[in-house]
């Protein structure tokens, strides 16, 4: 079956703009995660959903970042008033239940000019 998909694959925006990044998890996976990977670094956790609710959002850097998963499947990561420091690859992963293997999507490369 299909893996985790993310759209767009690349997003270039200007400082101060609003962006939305989309994640389609593997069908049937109840858990969904967002990570951010800066150049030359390992991924850093942002937020974790179990079903529709955010079970852990401790990694969101500030209140400009918000994520939703209204129907327990597709998730959208929203960033308001983007800053140059938000430039990174945003990775989404899903797993079949808690503590099972996480499968990652290819990521969205966000560039803030």
């Amino acid at each position, binding site marked *: 079956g299909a893996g*985790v998909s993310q759209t767009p694959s690349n997003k270039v925006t200007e400082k101060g703009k609003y962006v939305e990044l989309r994640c389609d998890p593997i069908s049937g996976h109840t*858990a969904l*995660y967002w*990570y951010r990977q800066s150049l*030359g*670094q*390992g*991924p*850093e*956790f942002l937020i*974790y959903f179990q079903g529709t609710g955010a*079970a*852990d959002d*401790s*990694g969101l850097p500030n209140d400009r970042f918000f994520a939703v998963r209204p129907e327990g499947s597709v998730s959208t990561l929203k960033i308001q008033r983007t800053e140059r420091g938000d430039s990174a690859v945003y*990775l989404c*992963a899903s*797993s079949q239940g*808690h*503590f099972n*293997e*996480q*499968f*990652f*999507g*290819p*990521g969205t490369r966000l560039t803030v000019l």
Partner: protein
Amino acid sequence: TQLLEQSPQFLSIQEGENLTVYCNSSSVFSSLQWYRQEPGEGPVLLVTVVTGGEVKKLKRLTFQFGDARKDSSLHITAAQPGDTGLYLCAVRKAAGNKLTFGGGTRVLVKP
């Protein structure tokens, strides 16, 4: 200070050579995972080690978990260009399912 320190940061070798990369911490973990990430892709799980002193083999890759469960190594025998990529170690936080990654080792195998 990062929870997981990986070394070296970058390694360039010729096809057929052996290499070892390390993942170290001062903390004790119940398990540790190794991932490989290729350009433009997300990380892919290679192995999970659970028991102190455990050795797992995946074809030409050998993974070892330290006796004290604070560190791990990945050894590649007779490296091939297809082994090129970013190797990441990761652990789960005890109270949740989020992964904490090391900074990664970038491996380049030249033909």
